[in-house]
């Protein structure tokens, strides 16, 4: 006799709620792919809000997202292309521009001014808040290699570079995972 495969919702849910025997935590994982000021801001607002609500928070910065972790006023890259990338697309929370209407930096200046007038926290302030609240910030090793960025190019409080498996481990034990 052939056994019919059954789908037991309860067992299935219980399985999904665990990762290798580890329970899902009250935790948020965020992939910060974008290096645009507006999107990075959204990522930091959600991260600080979650941390303030008692959640553990991990942020994984990859590709353009690494721009947000860079120290200000520095030239990055070693090869010709690497240097070009560093010069043409400056990093640091004050240098990154909005995803729309940046207009060669004019948009960035305008948004900063408007946000300042409305007492909205600036990106550097949000970053400090995230650090104070114990938000974990992890840079992607592979993107760092592509963009010729060194750990020295990043702000303090950024962890050692990690890979996809490290991020997946964080995401698997999180209630919420976002890609920004």
């Amino acid at each position: 006799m052939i056994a019919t495969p059954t789908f037991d919702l309860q067992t299935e849910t219980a399985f999904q709620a665990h990762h290798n025997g580890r329970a899902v935590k009250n935790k948020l994982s965020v992939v910060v792919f974008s290096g645009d000021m507006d999107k990075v801001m959204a990522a930091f607002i959600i991260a600080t809000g979650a941390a303030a609500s008692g959640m553990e928070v991990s942020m994984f910065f990859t590709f353009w997202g690494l721009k947000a972790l860079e120290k200000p006023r520095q030239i990055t890259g070693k090869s010709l292309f690497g240097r070009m990338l560093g010069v043409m697309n400056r990093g640091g929370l004050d240098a990154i521009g909005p995803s729309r209407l940046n207009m060669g930096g004019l948009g960035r200046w305008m948004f900063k001014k408007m946000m300042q007038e409305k007492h909205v926290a600036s990106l550097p302030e949000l970053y400090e808040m995230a650090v104070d609240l114990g938000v974990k910030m992890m840079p992607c090793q592979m993107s760092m290699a592509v963009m010729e960025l060194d750990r020295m190019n990043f702000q303090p409080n950024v962890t050692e570079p990690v890979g996809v498996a490290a991020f997946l481990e964080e995401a698997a034990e999180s209630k919420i995972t976002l890609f920004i």
Partner: protein
Amino acid sequence: MSTSMVETAAKFLDLKGLLCPIPVVKMAKAIKEVAVGETVEAVATDPGVMADIPAWCRSTGNELVSIEKQDKQFRFIARRAK
């Protein structure tokens, strides 16, 4: 009669002029600075707190004693649960 007359809050926060996520972040910091069972009272001008502070209380388990709109300000009291 307002609830704030019943007992004095252990800590008072002025959140006037501040926008998301600062009210929630400051509340989280302030609640850790009072003893369990004590309250934090705050005044804000961001209408967003009417949704955010009750949600923050639900997710952290702290008790929302009161939240009310007074003219153009929002006054609320939260009690530290644990």
